[in-house]
């Protein structure tokens, strides 16, 4: 049993890397727009299917579709965000609550569309990296790291690096951080709030869609996978503390480890229950996340 431990840990870390990309985009969008997007899992799912469609049309490796997928989905997000903004600035009802309902409805519509177009079956994305794996075996210690999972980690690190650079080293990033902290003040200082918000949402949708391609390749994809992925995103963000980006890596890797441990040692169907229990315990003990730095 102990022999499986290294595998469980490595799997968990690699999975965690993937979840981190989702969580960062999601947390970023929340920090700027102050709305939980219930459709986060659906964007991932759509990205996965986009990769599938790309492969079936062009017969090229799905990983090559990443740039195109990012651009397309970022554009979709960019165009969608003003709608969300209109709901958020509504004068009647309670705008933040209504925006939540809006994203909830959006998620449902997307899922329904995906089920309609793509059916109920599960697919798999095959890439050049899907077959090979790196194998280490020394006595009772063994480790198998599929290349595709390694690629996922590379992707995750690249995304985090780029996001980090964008936020800390560019004017755009400065604008984003200003809007996240104090929208009115940022506007008064010449930041175009609308464009910045739309760009952030586009960035988040685009990144989520790209992550979908990897999830489709590493695990599988089907039109109903959205909600579980949303749950993972919520889990990471709540555990890390809403809006506290620095806590996301720890939470993401914890999530990955929990999942891989359940896959290897326990019954995978209990993963959701375990996540849920932990989520509840966190909310009970420390609602601002495990670092108590959330919002």
């Amino acid at each position, binding site marked *: 049993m102990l022999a499986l431990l290294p595998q469980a840990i490595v799997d968990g870390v690699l999975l965690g890397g993937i979840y981190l990309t989702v969580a960062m985009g999601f947390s970023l969008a929340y920090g700027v727009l102050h709305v939980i997007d219930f459709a986060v899992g659906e964007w991932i799912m759509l990205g996965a299917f986009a990769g599938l469609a790309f492969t079936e049309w062009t017969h090229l490796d799905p990983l090559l579709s990443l740039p195109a997928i990012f651009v397309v989905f970022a554009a979709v997000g960019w165009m969608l965000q003003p709608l969300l903004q209109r709901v958020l600035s509504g004068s009647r009802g309670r705008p933040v609550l209504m925006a939540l309902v809006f994203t909830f409805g959006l998620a449902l*519509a997307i899922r*329904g569309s995906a089920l309609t177009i793509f059916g109920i079956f599960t697919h798999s994305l095959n890439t050049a990296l899907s077959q090979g794996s790196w194998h280490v075996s020394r006595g009772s210690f063994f480790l198998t790291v599929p290349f595709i999972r390694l690629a996922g980690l590379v992707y995750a690190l690249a995304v985090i690096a780029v996001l980090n650079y964008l936020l800390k080293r560019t004017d755009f990033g400065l604008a984003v951080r200003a809007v996240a902290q104090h929208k009115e003040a940022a506007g008064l200082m010449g930041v175009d709030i609308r464009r910045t918000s739309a760009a952030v949402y586009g960035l988040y949708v685009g990144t989520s869609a790209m992550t979908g391609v990897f999830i489709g390749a590493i695990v599988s994809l089907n039109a109903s996978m959205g909600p579980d992925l949303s749950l993972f995103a919520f889990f990471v963000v709540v555990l890390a503390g809403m809006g506290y980006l620095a806590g996301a890596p720890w939470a993401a890797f914890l999530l990955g480890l929990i999942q891989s441990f359940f896959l290897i040692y326990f019954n995978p169907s209990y993963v959701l229950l375990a996540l849920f229990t932990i989520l509840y315990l966190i909310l009970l003990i420390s609602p601002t996340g495990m670092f108590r730095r959330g919002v």
Partner: protein
Amino acid sequence: MRGRPAWMWILLVIAAVGAVPAVMTDPFFLRLFTEALMWIGLAITWDVMAGYTGYLNFGHGVFFGVGAYTAALLIIRAGMPFGLAAALGGLVAGVVALVSGWPTLRLRGAYFAIGTWALNRAVGQLALVLEITGGPDGMRLPPFLRPQFFAWVMLAVVGATFLALWLLLEQAPFGLKLKAIREDESGSLAIGLNPARLKLQAFVLSAVPAGIIGGVYAYWITFIDPSSTLGDLITDQAVVMAIFGGLGTLIGPVIGAIVFFAFKTYFWAYLSDYQVLYLIILGLAIAATVFFLPDGFWGAVTNRLEGRRALRKGLSLGEAAGT
């Protein structure tokens, strides 16, 4: 309103509706009748949290499912009579609300939405893996095929729920206190309200009737499984109905439930090949209502009426509302 008090009118309406199953005995019609009532019950109970208290419960279906499974288990395994089993279904749903609400209601609305949504999925997962609940195959209840009986039972449950909610939310101070919390939770502390306690009470209030309705559903349909009772669709539809009808009132969700159920029946009759299209319509309906009709249908109507009354009497809006 002069004359009889509101609750007498409500009882009158319930009695009038109750006469229908006595006259129209066609089983298919009675099935529709019963299901429409069921949705009214789910929509108004969802509104208790969403409209009155301002907290979105995206897992409201969990109370329905827990009630259904509890009643089913009690009827099948313990041989309990239906009425008692359904009542206990409501009780267990209430306990679930109490236990899950206590940590999540202390937080902001978004966390509550996530927490309830996650709870629903988790309980659905539980029902899928446990042997006692029959797993993915669900549970079969002993058949008791009496359409009229269930029509009246559902009417009694939903009617009683409506009446109770009317008394508690529209007549008693409780409703206004919830609304105050909805408007400004921090400010409500200063005027002597204890939001944590009031929210929990509202949450349990929304859960118990939904659980009883679930229990009735189980015995009525004689078959339950995780996807039909603990799936997303229960919550999704209740949300559409309440939002379309108009949050923060009791009449709004009733109208929303009836309208949407009528649409759904029509849809299934003619478009049942396109089942997944229904999801799209649900989702778009929710998004569109939020976008174009944030106060819902009934909200838009009452806004119009107030405006018209003011114009007619040449009064300011405030004075008109008072007459």
